[in-house]
């Protein structure tokens, strides 16, 4: 009995080996792949800091898989896309979860790709001989962002519709070819069926195709040059010596990438995948938001998180330099990223010896963070329903004269609150008015209200004299925590001047 068991096992192994040999003698790919996986890598880079690239690849695979599954149901037609997403959310078993995985996977992938890029930059790993690996990485970042933007269009809701409008409006600013470019982006004269179809083509065929190919080349170069060694202060990268030094390091300290270094990659990838699954489960899919009916204008379009910083920057650019900045700065930025290793291909790799690089990256990170944060609550946008939604706080009316109370009504009715806060409620486009009377005197308030200026429209046409008088009386009573009101500094001089003043009018006696 035991004999036969042993024999059976031996036969099974033999048969398995035979099958493997049959396949491999014809395919010839398994052996090289195993060798590539087991290639020796310097032991000092088997670090938790070196795990982002593989996690991004794993996320890409999940995005392709969930994307293919979503395409089984999604209808890429302007008339039906939104409804097909609702159908996926509510009528298809686990459709909501597949959408959630794809959406959260996209956010995680952008985050991991950016972390990967930051790590490579801070560790100086883009230097010789890995310049082209970096350049392909920059292209991969752009392709990932391209997937995110076209993916947002796939969600074909109000944000997607008006986001396309923003894209067309930016294209229209390109000199000379503005109009043909708009038509090229939209696929026709308006946002419609042709627009969704071409963004679908980009999202499903064109960009993923290039992305997968570029990942292949990127990984090929990683294998060819080896994973960069841990940077040490004073260990200078020189084109003449680096490769020899790297090989010596591998000879001396090399460990097989699989499994000695790759287990960390695998653990991290699993953790990330689990996070995506958990986020998808607990937070669900993204939208779709309101249906893409352009006649429903009660909407405040906003891009997805990866593009919020651009949305914020576009609110702050001065009108005169807006178009040049929109069109030129991205070109310079991308060119700089691509050419970085050409200009800084040699020298120190350790962060402690690259203060300018570290300062640049810190400023960029803080800047992007600030603009993204601003994009989340858009202080520049009027709060469209603040005039009817946010009441005047009672303490601002208590003890006020009838005229001042009338002014408080005017302030609400004329929609001033859409841009001005009282007690922390209302728009933030203009300054809060809680203590306006401590900053402007009556004359200044009248001038500002009627003539506008400093990014405030003139209300001369929207206010009649009695409304103006009441409004100004109310505003003049807003002095914060009972602070000293603003006064015209020349007023005292006028009072004291030796010029003969006209006699005070005698109050008429009423019987």
């Amino acid at each position, binding site marked *: 009995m035991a004999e036969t068991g042993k024999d059976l096992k031996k036969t099974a192994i033999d048969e398995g080996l035979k099958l493997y040999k049959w396949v491999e003698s014809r395919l010839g790919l398994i052996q090289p792949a195993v060798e590539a996986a087991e290639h020796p890598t310097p032991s000092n880079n088997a670090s938790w800091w070196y795990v982002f690239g593989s996690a991004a690849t794993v996320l890409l695979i999940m995005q392709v898989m969930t994307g293919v599954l979503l395409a089984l149901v999604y209808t890429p*037609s*302007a*008339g*039906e896309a939104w409804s097909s997403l609702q159908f996926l959310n509510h009528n298809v078993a686990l459709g909501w979860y597949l959408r959630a995985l794809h959406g959260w996977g996209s956010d995680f992938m952008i985050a991991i790709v950016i972390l990967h890029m930051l790590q490579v930059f801070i560790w100086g790993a883009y230097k010789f001989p890995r310049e082209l690996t970096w350049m392909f990485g920059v292209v991969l970042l752009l392709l990932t962002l391209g997937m995110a933007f076209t993916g947002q269009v796939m969600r074909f809701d109000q944000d997607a519709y*008006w986001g396309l*409008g*923003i894209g*067309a*409006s*930016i294209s*229209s*600013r*390109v000199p000379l070819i*503005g*109009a*043909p470019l*708009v*038509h*090229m982006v*939209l696929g*026709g*004269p*308006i*946002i*419609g*069926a*042709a627009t969704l179809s071409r963004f679908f083509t980009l999202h499903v065929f064109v960009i993923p195709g290039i992305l997968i190919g570029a990942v292949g080349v990127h990984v090929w170069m990683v294998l060819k040059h080896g994973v960069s060694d841990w940077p040490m202060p004073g260990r200078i990268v020189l084109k003449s010596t680096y490769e020899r030094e790297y090989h010596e390091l591998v000879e001396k300290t090399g460990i097989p990438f699989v499994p000695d270094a790759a287990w960390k990659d695998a653990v991290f990838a699993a953790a990330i995948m689990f996070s995506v699954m958990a986020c998808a489960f607990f937070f669900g899919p993204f939208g779709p938001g309101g*249906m893409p*009916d*352009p*006649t429903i*204008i*009660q*909407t*405040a*379009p906003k891009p997805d998180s990866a593009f919020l910083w651009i949305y914020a920057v*576009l*609110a702050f*650019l001065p*009108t005169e330099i*807006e178009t040049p900045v929109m069109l030129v700065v991205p070109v310079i930025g991308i060119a700089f990223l691509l050419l970085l290793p050409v200009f800084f291909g040699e020298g120190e790799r350790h962060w402690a010896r690259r203060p300018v690089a570290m300062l640049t990256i810190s400023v960029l990170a803080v800047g992007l963070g600030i603009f993204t944060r601003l994009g989340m609550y858009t202080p*520049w*946008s*009027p709060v*469209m329903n603040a*005039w009817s939604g946010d009441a005047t706080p009672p303490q601002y009316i208590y003890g006020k004269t009838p005229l001042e109370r009338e002014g408080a009504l005017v302030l609400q*009715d*004329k*929609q*001033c609150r*859409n*841009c001005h806060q009282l007690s922390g409620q209302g728009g933030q486009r203009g300054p809060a008015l809680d203590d306006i009377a401590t900053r402007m005197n009556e004359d200044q308030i009248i001038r500002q209200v009627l003539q*506008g200026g400093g*990014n*405030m*429209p*003139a*209300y001369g*046409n*929207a206010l009649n004299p009695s409304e103006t008088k009441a409004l100004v009386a109310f505003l003049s009573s807003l002095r914060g925590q009972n602070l000293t009101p603003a006064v015209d500094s020349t007023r005292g001089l006028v009072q004291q001047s030796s010029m003969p003043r006209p006699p005070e009018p005698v109050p008429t006696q009423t019987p």
Partner: protein
Amino acid sequence: MWNDFFKYPGDSKSDTLSPEGKAAAHTRRVFLFKAAVAMNAIVGAVLAVPLLGYILGPSLKKSSEVGSWIPLGSIEEFPMGETRLAEFVSPVKSLGDGETAKVACWVRRTSTGSFQVFAINCAHLGCPVRWFAQAKLFLCPCHGGAYYETGERAAGPPERGLFQYRTRIENGALMIHAGDMPTLATQAKCTGKPLVQIASAAEEKA
């Protein structure tokens, strides 16, 4: 090796080749291969014409060819001195546009026979502007662009006033000329004449 291969035999640049190399560059097989490569280049160039034509099709159409006059409704629907939201189905809609074929616009009636019809799209980046009757302002939700009731720029990032459609009255109906989505480069055009600018609105009435 490739450099040598593409050198024209007898070319002075080929002088460095050995006599055997020159002979090799002269063989019939090499000639046939070069001829085949040239054939493929020609086929590729010819094939590129329809492919490029297909891709560039939408952008080769002139803006002035797009669009036509369409009715917004009876002029009685728009009270004097008020600004109202109106909607129409784009005359340039195509198969499968669905809801996106609909377009909204703001109609302001200034007198018995004169109208201003503003595009819904902000002149900054195309978001839908909303009319606030009490403040007499159009406000944009995206970046806070503001326009007066006449469509002139009031505040915010837009560099110009709202886009205006050309209008005319026909049998008691308000007609506008609509086509392209209005942007800085593609304003609704009619017979090659640019869209009414805010400044020339007065001339238009005259």
